[in-house]
């Protein structure tokens, strides 16, 4: 033990700040959140004691008769059966939202990266220009897209009118509203994918392409047999991260659709947030949502990882 400390103390010292912050602010809250999901805690009953100042200035505390209590799995039953909130609607939205966003992020990112990986005039200009959306804070982008799709003053409807079509009330229908949010998020997320994939492309040895060319492979065959396999390590990581990030992407939905119409475009994360911080703050409901979201992601990540390791890929 002592020897182990002598040998590793500097490594531990280097990770200590991170570990402390994470355990105080990620794991303690996580445990507490899981606990809250089994109670009926909300804004009005969160105190376990009610304290009153006496005339002498002392505090007298009595147990709160309406304090939150343990309710077992009630929250989960309520949420999953639709008694409380709109879990399945939001779940469907989340899946559509995540699949659409990640597919386009990866597809467009890959396409642009392959193009930028060639040698041609103006390449560095395109590269910088195409990463610009990354530099825009998400909530600013959300407002910008909200405005672009604005029914009265938005440029999108302006263009439609200019070519003689009827303006669309984007935020009056579930799918058109979701479409605007997906557009905004694709715009925001492609640069990260593009840069990551571009890095992956540059790490593929040029010799491989020359060897394949000598073997008579067509450009398409080279793409299929060298580029895509060579990108596997990068792709597997960015798709996993991208999925998780998109799943938990808060500001876009929150500001672009604001759940319009009538909460129909809410995804799980924004739904949980509204439960916890709007109206009467229902902490237990938010926590229940949180546990469900986390479970979905953990299942997804482990299935994803198993799929990869079956194909001989370990990360």
């Amino acid at each position: 033990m002592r020897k182990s400390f002598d040998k590793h103390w500097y490594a531990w010292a280097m990770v200590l700040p991170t570990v402390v912050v994470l355990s105080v602010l990620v794991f303690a809250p996580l445990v507490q959140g899981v606990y809250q999901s089994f109670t009926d805690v909300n804004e009005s009953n969160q105190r376990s004691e009610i304290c009153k100042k006496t005339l002498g200035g002392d505090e007298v505390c009595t147990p709160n008769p309406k304090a939150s209590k343990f309710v077992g799995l009630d929250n989960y039953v309520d949420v999953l059966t639709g008694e409380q909130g709109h879990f399945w609607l939001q779940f469907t939205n989340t899946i559509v939202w995540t699949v659409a966003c990640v597919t386009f992020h990866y597809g467009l990112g890959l396409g642009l990266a392959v193009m930028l990986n060639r040698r041609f005039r103006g390449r560095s200009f395109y590269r910088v220009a195409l990463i610009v959306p990354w530099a825009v804070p998400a909530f600013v982008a959300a407002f910008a897209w909200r405005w672009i799709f604005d029914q009265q003053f938005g440029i999108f409807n302006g263009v439609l009118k200019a070519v003689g079509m009827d303006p669309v009330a984007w935020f009056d229908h579930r799918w058109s509203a979701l479409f605007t949010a997906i557009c905004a998020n694709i715009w925001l997320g492609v640069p990260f994918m593009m840069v990551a994939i571009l890095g992956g492309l540059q790490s593929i040895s040029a010799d491989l392409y020359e060897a394949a060319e000598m073997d008579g492979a067509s450009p398409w065959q080279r793409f299929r047999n060298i580029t895509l396999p060579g990108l596997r390590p990068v792709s597997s990581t960015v798709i996993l991260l991208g999925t998780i990030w998109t799943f938990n992407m808060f500001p876009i939905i929150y500001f672009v659709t604001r759940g319009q119409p009538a909460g129909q475009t809410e995804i799980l994360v924004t739904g949980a947030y509204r439960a916890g911080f709007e109206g009467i703050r229902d902490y237990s409901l938010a926590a229940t949502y949180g546990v469900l979201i986390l479970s979905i992601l953990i299942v997804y990540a482990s299935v994803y990882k198993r799929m990869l390791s079956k194909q001989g890929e370990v990360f």
Partner: protein
Amino acid sequence: MSSMPPATATETPAAVTPPRVRGREDRSLLASVALHGTLIVATFIALFPVLWVMLSSIKPASEIRRTEISLFASPTLENYRKVLFDTNFPQWFLNSVIVAAFTMVIGIAMSASAGYALSRFNFPGKRGLMWVFLLTQMFPVAILIVPIYTIMANLGLIDTKASLVIAYCTVAVPFCAWMLRGYFDTIPRELDEAAALDGLGPFGTFYRVILPLARPGLAVTAFYTFLTAWGEVAYAIAFMQTDDHYTLGAGLQQFVPQFSPRWDLLTAGAVLITIPAAIVFFFAQKHLVAGLTAGGTKG
């Protein structure tokens, strides 16, 4: 691109011009047009929202609220004046600068040292920590925000900038440490060993040899942490309660309430918010590919 084929030595002036052969590096005209066409469209889409907001921000409010499209219409800085002098925007901006700067500095310090330890040392708990880092990426804001709110309230930190800095570090550090570990892995270990022989301890090696060499990785980390802090909304709205303490993420939405949104103020504010992010971005962008290649991509 269309570089000329190497000029053949023409000693006899009457020599027939050699047939124009397509060199390996050349691309057919069609392919060139397709390549540039696609990229121009992509660039247009990438830049359009930014440019449109910038153009709109110098239109008078009345122009913004018109249904016809116009690029320029009596340009004016009136929107900026209103944002800067008639609203609390400057205060929010200052708050955001402070929060983002602290997050950036603390985040880099924490993730760099953790990333270095993960890259170089085999210590008990290393594998577990790597897992935790990956796992924290999955935690939705929703499950953490209420308990963190409670903790912050107990510490008396609600409505303070410190609460946001700490919260943002938990978001940014795991990813950054993971990425920096990958970057440090690309720096040859022999440099550490040479430093050990030259008389440096682990901390000296880290500070005097490795950090100066990790600039691309650190630039990406800086960019990422800054942007995380600058653009975060959920914690900001939940933690900050007085208008004076709002950061931009929490404040900006006040310009565009559900009814009668002030798009004139919003566009000007959006441009002002994006400027610092853009500055950090352009310092980092040169390193983005290198930093991310080494880092985010290899597990």
